[in-house]
């Protein structure tokens, strides 16, 4: 990495973000899919179940389903070749930070690591050495008072602030707007990572906003509790990040989404601190101020502390799985589960493409599907039950509770599944499905090494529109890819990841081999935009939990209406009139440099 300016820093903490995370890909530096010397796909490192294992069925899947030639590599640029521009100078700010003994650094790598999230754009840019506008200085507040101080400094020295938690955003929320002329401070919350107290009487816990999900959960577990919030990004995402994006966890059926878990919080904004006077289970005091903060995506201020509900660790945690003859049966089963309100902690339905992909990712020893090939159970499913290999799909679930509860839940679900021609697929396959969730994020990096562009995006949708939405969006991605000149088969797949009383959350996975396209990223963009348009036209939402960031701003007006947007703008101008929190997420503020008006 070359940077032609002098690094200025003070009291820089040793941070996991700079030590053990990839600079241009997902997750830990030591963990990735690679091709071993036998030509098989394998996973490196030692942090995951599949680490060090070989997945012999994956290469054929990869080659067939996406038309990939593994001998073709599109290597990423080396970090040493990356050129970083000098930051916007603001000596007054630097002096202010030094005076107040606040940790900061403008070192090139530290800025780079906090300049992006994980959209396909972010990754392609890093891999190709196209470095976007970076924040100019990174600060690490150690206390809430320091946050207040930093905001004061930003106000008196004409700076902008972009807070960063885990950096797992997939909405371009962390990108520094190119039009921002002020010095931009990246406020890294990493040092605010402590649990402040655990209240066993009320089953609540107060923690600093920068605490990483897995750390919070580990500490709670030690004391016999769980926070119950388990987003797929839990290894890296933070409590504050969950609040500011309205996060959702896979076990929300039992524990609730983040808005159900938050009991109290402190929010620091340029006007001061928002904080309720009491920590109560529910309150009628006018519109809930928390709801303005949840999902504000760093546009109004920054979350400093949060009180969340905690739960005693369940006696039993058990996985389950079902196999359905087709997606429609699976969805109908889910609908019935929701209407009877018998959902276990988590319930997910994969479509056929994902089912097949999941089977392909199985490691040599335990490939259920592969071993099924000649076995009696496969005969049972395909011949006797009449399931078609290209329509079959699978559901996985997690039961949590007392042994008795779990037994009862499992029994109820198994019986109901039979009504929809579902077959119980066993605990092992269920567990496998959830393990895969963590590994799957690494998969895109392998794809990118071989010319694949891919992304996942999600929505929420009422029950009566789930099937048609899934079908139309997948069809659109296929047809649009063809129309845009994609030569190879595309991966257009979906899964239902959450059930609600009134609808479901649906995740789409889209990937294609961009080899041979003059501008693959542009093609990707067109298809994702068309797909979101289709989602909305089919009754889906702008987002279920990823948020809006900058990538989905264009749908905010349709989603909230003109008056709704005006209200958000009014809140913004009240809380942050100087637009200090200038990440330009959610909406464009008239008068700010990034506004097109």
């Amino acid at each position, binding site marked *: 990495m070359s940077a032609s300016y002098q690094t200025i820093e003070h009291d820089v903490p040793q941070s996991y973000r700079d030590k053990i995370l990839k600079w241009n890909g997902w997750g830990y530096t030591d963990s990735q899919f690679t091709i071993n010397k036998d030509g098989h796909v394998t996973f490196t490192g030692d942090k995951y179940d599949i680490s060090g294992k070989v997945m012999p069925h994956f290469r054929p899947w990869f080659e067939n389903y996406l038309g990939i030639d593994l001998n073709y590599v599109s290597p990423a640029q080396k970090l040493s070749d990356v050129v970083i521009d000098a930051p916007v100078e603001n000596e007054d700010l630097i002096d202010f930070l030094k005076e107040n003994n606040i940790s900061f650094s403008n070192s090139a790598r530290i800025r780079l690591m906090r300049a992006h999230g994980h959209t396909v754009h972010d990754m392609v840019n890093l891999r190709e050495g196209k470095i976007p506008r970076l924040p100019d200085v990174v600060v690490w507040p150690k206390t809430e008072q320091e946050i207040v101080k930093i905001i004061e400094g930003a106000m008196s020295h004409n700076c902008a602030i972009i807070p960063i938690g885990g950096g797992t955003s997939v909405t371009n929320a962390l990108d520094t707007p190119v039009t921002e002329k002020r010095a931009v401070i990246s406020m890294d919350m990493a040092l605010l990572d402590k649990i402040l107290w655990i209240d066993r009487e009320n089953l609540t816990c107060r923690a600093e906003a920068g605490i990483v999900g897995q750390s919070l959960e580990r500490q709670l577990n030690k004391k016999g509790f769980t926070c119950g919030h388990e987003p797929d990004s839990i290894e890296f995402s933070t409590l504050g990040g969950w609040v500011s994006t309205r996060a959702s966890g896979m076990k929300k059926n039992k524990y609730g989404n983040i808005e159900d878990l938050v009991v109290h919080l402190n929010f620091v904004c340029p006007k001061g601190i928002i904080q309720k006077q009491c920590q109560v289970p529910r309150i009628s005091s006018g519109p809930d101020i928390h709801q303005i903060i949840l999902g504000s995506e760093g546009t109004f201020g920054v979350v400093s502390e949060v009180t969340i509900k905690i739960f005693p660790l369940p006696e039993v945690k058990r996985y389950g799985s079902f196999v359905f003859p*087709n*997606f*429609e049966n699976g969805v109908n089963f889910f609908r019935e589960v929701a209407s009877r309100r018998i959902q276990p902690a988590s319930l997910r339905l994969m479509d056929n493409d994902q089912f097949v992909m999941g089977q392909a990712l199985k490691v040599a020893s335990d490939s259920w599907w592969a071993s099924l090939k000649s076995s009696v159970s496969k005969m049972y499913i395909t011949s006797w039950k009449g399931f*078609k290999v*290209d*329509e079959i799909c699978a559901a996985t679930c997690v039961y949590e509770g007392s042994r008795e509860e779990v037994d009862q839940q499992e029994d109820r679900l198994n019986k109901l599944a039979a009504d929809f021609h579902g077959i119980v697929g066993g605990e092992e396959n269920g567990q496998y499905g959830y393990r895969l969730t963590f590994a799957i994020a690494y998969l895109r990096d392998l794809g990118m090494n071989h010319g694949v562009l891919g992304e996942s995006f999600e929505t929420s949708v*009422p029950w*009566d*529109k789930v099937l*048609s*939405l*899934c*079908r*139309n969006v*997948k*069809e*659109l991605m296929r047809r649009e890819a063809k129309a845009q000149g994609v030569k190879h088969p595309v991966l257009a797949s979906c899964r239902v990841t959450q059930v609600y009383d009134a609808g479901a959350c649906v995740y789409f996975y889209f990937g294609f081999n961009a080899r041979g396209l003059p501008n693959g990223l542009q093609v990707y963009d067109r298809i994702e935009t068309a797909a979101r348009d289709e989602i*909305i*036209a*089919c*009754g889906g939402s702008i987002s279920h939990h990823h948020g809006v960031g900058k990538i989905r701003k264009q749908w905010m007006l*349709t989603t909230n209406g003109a008056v709704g947007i005006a209200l958000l703008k009014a809140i913004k101008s009240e809380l942050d009139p100087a637009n200090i929190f200038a990440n330009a997420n959610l909406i464009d503020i008239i008068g700010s440099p990034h506004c097109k008006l």
Partner: protein
Amino acid sequence: MSIPQTGRQINYPEYENFLDHLEKKGGPFKFVTAHKHFPVGSKVGTAPKTRSLAEIRKSVLESPRVKSVISEETLRRKCAPEDVRKEAEEILDEMSHTFNLYNVRSFGYAVCKAMEKLYDGIYVNEQKLLEIRERSKRDCVIFMPSHKTYFDFLLLSLICFQYDIQLPAIAAGQDFMSMKFMAGVLRRSGAFFMRRSFGTDQLYWAVFSEYVQTHVVNNDRTVEFFVEATRSRVGKSLHPKYGMLQMILEPYLRGSVYDIVIVPVSMNYDKILEEKLYAYELLGFPKPKESTGGLLKAREILNNTHGSCFLTFGDPISVRDHFGVSLHRNTFVCQPDSQFVLDNQAKVEIKKFAHHVVEIHNKNAVITVWSVACMVILQTFDRDDQATLTYSTIYSGVEDLITLLNQLGTVVNIQGNLDKNLRYYLSMHADLFEPFDCTAQDFQLKFIDFPVAHQQQGVPIKVMERAVSRLILTTYSNGMIHAVDSEGIICAILRNNGVSSLAKVREEFCWLHNLMKREFVTIPGELPQLFEKTLRILTSSEILEVSDDVIRILDEKNVEILSKLVLPYFYNIEMAFAVFSPMKPMVSDLAEMVGTVQKNISDAYQNRLPNTRLSFLSTEPIKNAFAALSDLGIFEKSSSGMRTNFAKLHEIKARLANFTKSTISSKL
């Protein structure tokens, strides 16, 4: 820029003759028993699958919409849900088709045999069919044919069979059901029946729309319906109806299907089987109930050739592409799927689309030499109703008119040379004339009178008898009017209204077209564009020129010819308008007035008043004229009937007279 072309020339290889195929295959029996590879339609996202009739039935009765209406009705009627469900089942049984390929094959045999006898050729543009076949595998294909005869759907199904396209489920009017035997056959060939009106019957509405939509959503087969709703008895397009189209498009709008493909089909005939029936019916003699007996009697018809039929399949229209910009599906998503309601904007766009389809019907229609000849003959009668027709005068009239049409970018289909072709048509339609020798160099033609059963009020039998052939002639001449209607209106405005400023002419053009919207189908809201398009045609064919926003006539003669082609339509409605008199300000029922108009026309004809045609006796334009007045708000409903607003009516009549005047000597 090139002028959009109207009309089609039938040429191999664009058009294939189906009868040649039939012969090559070894005749009807071999044809209907041939092994077929109909693509099994697939619902996007699931494997192709053929549903059984029972599955279709179940999907309707189990649909959220039908279930929800059954619950509502149970509460409203205070009865048992089983009763309502039973009624729903009965409704479903009444409408359902019982499609079955074996029946199609055996029925198809009879149809093929008949076709062979009836027609010299059945021409189809084959490439489009191959394209449609491919599309039908992915998305549901909806055929929207023009409708002039019962043969339309027989032919279309036959052609689908030939090209291995899933045979359509056809929306047919319930009047067919009175033909016991035929109704059964049609059901088994895939026709389903809808009541003509089912206004507020929620249960019927729910069952019917689910039934139609389950076919669209599951892409079981292609679907066919007539946007004009009923057979046009007048040889030109009828004003479209929208209900069925809305119903068919709904699954797309609420996202139940990815796309729907609409195929407009222009179906044209040299000789329409029902031509005489139509003429009687239009004169007001009761319509014989469709009965199988009636059709069988038609067997004598089988011994005469009916020339050729021409099926022109239009470019498949992807509904997604067509409505992509104008209709935002996201405005509908706050409604549950089971209670879907279209907003006004959507209805407007769908209406426009229906008119657009009719426009394509016309653009792709084959204009025959016979159609031109009928126009020429009618114009000859305009000059002198007792004129003796000779072949040579007709021939030269036809030749001139074709030259003018070609100049306007309209193609008239001439098979071989014009002389041969015209003689072919005359002998095909010989039943209209007293015997003549078609091989002679020149010969005279005299129309025969067709017997009528009884006297209509105030119109002498003689007049009616003569009118029958005039109505038949008009029906055929109407087959070309779409190519010159707008041109004629502009020319007549320039000649008669005494205005030449572009804006004034446009204003008048739009007003007149709007007044005539049932006679000449146009796209609502797009008349200014039509004006510009027509003006381009007239200027590039050097009939008019535009400079400084003033239109000038370059070719007086053709301007006169063009205006005379359309003016009779206006004279016709003018005579209908004349029936409302301040002496009798209350009208109880417009239908009753039709007889009076006919009597007035008959009187005018007998007194040899100018601009009166016997064909004006047709009830269709009279009803259209009344409907136009209703649209313009001339009638105010009151308890004792309808009060005519004479001030408004006078305004309309004056404006219309301004347009028709210069040729009406009596009004000068």
